[in-house]
């Protein structure tokens, strides 16, 4: 049972990571910096609960704000470049963050224990959940409450004018400018929201794993972050959720019985999926078909 609860926790946190990339991808920007924002969230939240003895929720809130602020600050210069240049700029930023934590030591003495981040060894003993008597189930429920809130928020944004403007920028930046959209403001805002969500995700991640270290936040994690929304499709937030379940639940855990053949299948299935469904698993066509299935009358009168 605990195994499945653990899996559910992983899927929840990775969904948050994917959603942070989703915001940025909507504006047509491929950012590999999300792992960096995730790392900032993880370390900030961990430091606040362990070293400053804060309760969890305010610690997560501060972690999200710090990540969002960093994303905003990085977004201004970084979003001047596009395409491959942006990919590389964000890889550079993400790696710089990871390497910063690789070299970052700030410890305090607590009885016999040394607490706090310790360079390459990482940050151990983030024991907020066990200390406060949270069971694995409690943690899983908490994670999914946060996921549900974030998804609801993004769903709402998606259906407001903001969603349409983000997509317009993603589709054609020149046309967007020529209808009066300030594309820099839009892109930086999307980056900031993405950083904010990644910060929440990272903060939760730090607490359920209890031990974080720089190697967890590398290019691979950044790639996973963009993989969820791309694989799931950008037509709505559920694509990202679906892809997180598919990758973490099916490809990584579900295929465990295949031994080390599983990893081979993992890369292969991603390649296959992109060949078969280039716009993602849950693309606009599928979404429409599903909606027609569940609300046939409304769709017909609209068309």
């Amino acid at each position, binding site marked *: 049972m605990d195994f499945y609860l653990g899996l559910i926790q992983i899927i929840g946190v990775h969904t948050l990571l994917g959603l942070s990339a989703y915001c940025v*991808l909507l504006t047509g920007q*491929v950012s590999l910096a999300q792992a960096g924002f995730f790392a900032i969230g993880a370390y900030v939240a961990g430091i606040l609960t362990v070293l400053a003895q804060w309760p969890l929720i305010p610690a997560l809130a501060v972690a999200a704000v710090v990540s969002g602020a960093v994303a905003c600050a990085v977004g201004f*210069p*970084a979003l*001047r*470049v596009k*395409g*491959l*240049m942006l*990919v*590389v*700029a964000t*890889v*550079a*930023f993400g*790696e*710089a963050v990871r*390497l*910063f934590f*690789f*070299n970052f030591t700030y410890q305090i003495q607590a009885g016999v224990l040394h607490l706090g981040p310790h*360079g*390459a060894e990482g940050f151990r003993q983030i024991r907020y959940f066990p200390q406060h008597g949270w069971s694995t189930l409690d943690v899983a429920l908490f994670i999914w409450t946060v996921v549900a809130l974030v998804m609801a928020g993004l769903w709402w944004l998606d259906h407001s004018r903001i969603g349409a403007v983000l997509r317009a920028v993603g589709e054609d930046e020149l046309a967007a400018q020529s209808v009066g959209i300030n594309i820099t403001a839009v892109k930086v805002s999307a980056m900031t929201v993405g950083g904010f969500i990644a910060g929440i995700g990272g903060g939760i991640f730090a607490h359920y794993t209890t031990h974080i270290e720089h190697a967890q936040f*590398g*290019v*691979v994690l950044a*790639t996973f972050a*963009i*993989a969820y929304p*791309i*694989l799931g499709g*950008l037509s709505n937030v559920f694509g990202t959720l679906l892809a997180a379940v598919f990758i973490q639940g099916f490809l990584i855990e579900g295929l465990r019985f295949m031994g*080390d*053949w599983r*990893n*081979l299948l*993992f*890369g*292969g*299935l*991603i*390649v296959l*999926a*992109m*060949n078969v469904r*280039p*716009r993602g698993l849950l693309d606009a066509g599928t979404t429409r078909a599903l909606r027609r299935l569940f609300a046939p009358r409304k769709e017909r009168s609209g068309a």
Partner: protein
Amino acid sequence: MDLLDLIDAVQSVADGVLFGATYSLLGIGFTLIFGVMHKINLSYAAASIGAAYASLLVMSVVQAPAVLAFVAAAAAGGVIGGLVYLVGFRFIPLANPLATLMSTVGLLLLIDEIIVHATDGVPLSYPALFSDVIVQVGPFGLRGDLMFVFALGCVCMVLLLLLLYRTRLGLATRAVSQQPTASLLCGISTTRVNVLTFVITGVVGGIAGAMTGAAIGMLSPLLSLPLTVKGLIVTVIGGLGSIPGAIIAGLIVGGLENAFQFFRGVSERDLYIMLLLFAFLVFRPGGIFAKSSGRD
């Protein structure tokens, strides 16, 4: 800092510049693919390492001198390059850049895992050439294996430049990279040019992979991610689409890497490289040879 330290520092930078030829080749590969397809092939460095592994496989079957490992790696690189195009690009609509980006990520993971699966994740030693030779230039000693790697890299670059600027194939490649539709109307098959570009960059990558193996003395699937990042860095510092830029940038990155390592230690080395790169990208996105800051 006394004289001995200075000599050590220069020595270390010189080693880095020599090894930088590997980065140059990878940068050229990324640049060429981007030039022709306007797509990023993130599986490129992994494929290069894969080709070096394939050459080890060949060497284990056939008894041959170590030089042949490089030939085998080049051939394997070409084959893998063609396969990467077929699987990751051929059938995915070009209008959807995210899909090809993701498919190359999938290929990167796939190639890495094939290597892990075939070798049980254990690093394999790679034949180094001239590793016992050290040329003394004044107080500096140049390692024979690194000099060989550097020389081989230079030969590859010259051949590649000749191919691009002196043959019909090169002309077609450059035409496609500048005006794909017009080239199509002139009777150039873009698909064929695309395939050939992947095969050629694959050959170059295979040699770069073998050079990496020879310079370090071993191969490991853990090399592919850092090499991907370094290759991308070289591509953008050199300026997208610029082959001379990629060559110079490769050597600079190689030298800087060792310089930072010498002065700040191995754990902080890449941090400075990344910060430098970020600043470079943001304030000079056109690369080292750009006329202005490239902002439009």
